[in-house]
């Protein structure tokens, strides 16, 4: 296979207060996959994304994006944090939040202008939220807030997208809308990495999967490795048997 490696994680170890959250992770993610990271609560899924993005300092290990350190590849990466990580009562509008996606390319001090506004409006349209552009963000539903976050990442026009539980607390309509956008991104050759909780939908939504539980268990195409063996190793119970009961 001559596929390029989009993200490479090497010997990554992260700990909060002496307790390891991620232990010696080696992981390489090929370009152009739509990948789910699955694992039980406390498995370090969000931590993995956050340490790849430099939000959390690892104890050891390194991360490269297309062969170079992340700090030199920021323009190639976009991030959708967990919806609950911000205060939605902040005095701002949907359009304004989406505009924040342009701040990285603007750099320090420079203000967003007409070009940035146009980009933000286009992203809002893509996620079906154009009608809500002037809405105060606290007056949006949970699914709408998630779409705003997605639009903010789309504005970054990156090659790799990291998303932390984008389906959490959204209704079926929004879930379908979001997964369609993710599939479109993959079609456009982007790499999409999603922290995901719903094992039932993994085969339907994703083509690549990583099993994680503090240690890295397996990474590969869903059709090859999404099986009982890996699920049991990750969750410690025979998942399919447990579901059938």
């Amino acid at each position: 296979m001559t596929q390029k490696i989009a993200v490479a994680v090497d010997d990554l170890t992260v700990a909060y207060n002496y307790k390891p959250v991620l232990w010696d992770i080696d992981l390489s993610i090929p370009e152009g996959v739509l990948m789910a990271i699955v694992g039980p609560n406390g498995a370090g899924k969000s931590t993995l994304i956050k340490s790849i993005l430099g939000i959390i300092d690892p104890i050891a290990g390194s991360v490269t994006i297309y062969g170079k350190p992340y700090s030199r590849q920021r323009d190639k990466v976009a991030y959708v944090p967990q919806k609950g990580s911000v205060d939605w009562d902040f005095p701002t509008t949907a359009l304004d939040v989406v505009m924040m996606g342009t701040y990285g390319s603007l750099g320090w001090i420079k203000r967003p202008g007409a070009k940035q506004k146009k980009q933000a409006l286009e992203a809002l349209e893509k996620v079906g939220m154009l009608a809500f552009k002037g809405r105060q963000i606290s007056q949006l539903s949970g699914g709408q807030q998630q779409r705003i976050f997605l639009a903010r990442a789309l504005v970054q026009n990156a090659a790799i997208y990291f998303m932390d539980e984008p389906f959490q607390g959204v209704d079926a309509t929004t879930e379908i809308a979001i997964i369609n956008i993710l599939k479109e991104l993959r079609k456009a050759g982007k790499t999409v990495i999603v922290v995901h909780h719903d094992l039932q939908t993994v085969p339907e939504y994703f083509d690549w999967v990583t099993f994680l539980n503090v240690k890295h268990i397996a990474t590969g195409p869903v059709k090859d490795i999404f099986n009982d063996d890996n699920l049991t190793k990750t969750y410690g119970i025979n998942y399919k048997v447990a579901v059938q009961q």
Partner: protein
Amino acid sequence: MDITQYFTDYTLRTITLGTAVLGAICGMLGSFAVLRKQSLLGDAISHAALPGIAVAFLLTGAKDSNILLIGALVSGLIGTWWIRGIVTKTHLKTDTALGLILSLFFGFGMLLLTYIQKQPNANQAGLDKYLFGQAATLVESDVILMSTVTGISLLVMLLFWKEFKLLLFDKNYAMTLGFNTKFIDGLISFFIVLAIVIGLQTVGVVLMSAMLLAPAAAARQWTNSLSVMVILAAIFGMFSGVIGTAISASQNNLSTGPVIVLVAAVFVIISFVFSPGRGILFKQLRLLKNRRELELQKTLYFMYSIVRKHDDISRPHAIRILNNFQGFTKGTLSQLEQKDWIVIQGTNWSMTPRGFDTAANLYNSNLPEQ
């Protein structure tokens, strides 16, 4: 005193200008403190500044307010730094760290103040003005200092507006975009400390945090835009200063600091009750209005269920048949007619096409528009 004296009296004019500028900068920077959920940081910093004032006096023996304020600035910054250290290095939460530093520094400051008061040179009279503030001691050079600091912080705020907003809303995201969040965070904290320090002489360490929080809390009620909130907070702060000074000067020289803080509190109360979007009063009114609206819709839907059974929707029905229906009154009928949902003819009513459409789509409003 009369009103002309108010505008001609040089001392009073200086004090008014000083408290106005102070109110403006505190409101402006206080908005950031409130949105950063660090409202109590201001309280901790102002208390932490007290030992700095005492130490500066002990070292230099001077009562020059600028030297004392540098002492306040240094110990305020040390306090802030320690609070951050405690939060990042231990399991303790921010409120605990704030409480610890606040009481520790304030206690130490009081200890030094009592020590100074027992010194024989007794040049200390006036140091205790930093406890509750004494606006009357403001002189022109103080006002110039305040205005300069306000000008600089305004400039910095305008330059880094985008960065400030991004950091306040989503710090982690700001990090991934490549912004140095420690620098932005530090910049905001530094200017908050600066605003507090220049206010100590006027309002005092005990009440200073109210100057920071009250205008911002009031402003938040009126707007959903960050820029409008900051401007409004500055205006509220400014008026608190001006009105507070005027009241204290006209009422037998009441202590200015507390009066300013009370005026700011009045702004807060008015905002909490009367602001159109978030105020208690309008929330209640909206609730009542919505309830009436719902009752109206319920009646309309009941009528719709009758009309639906007939081919001709405009066919008249007797008002009598509504009598068994809960919530129906003469008022409801006339309101329905006003909305052009029904037509009343004598003892009969009939539904309009518009009413029919409205009723048919009443409970579909949550679906996406086709």
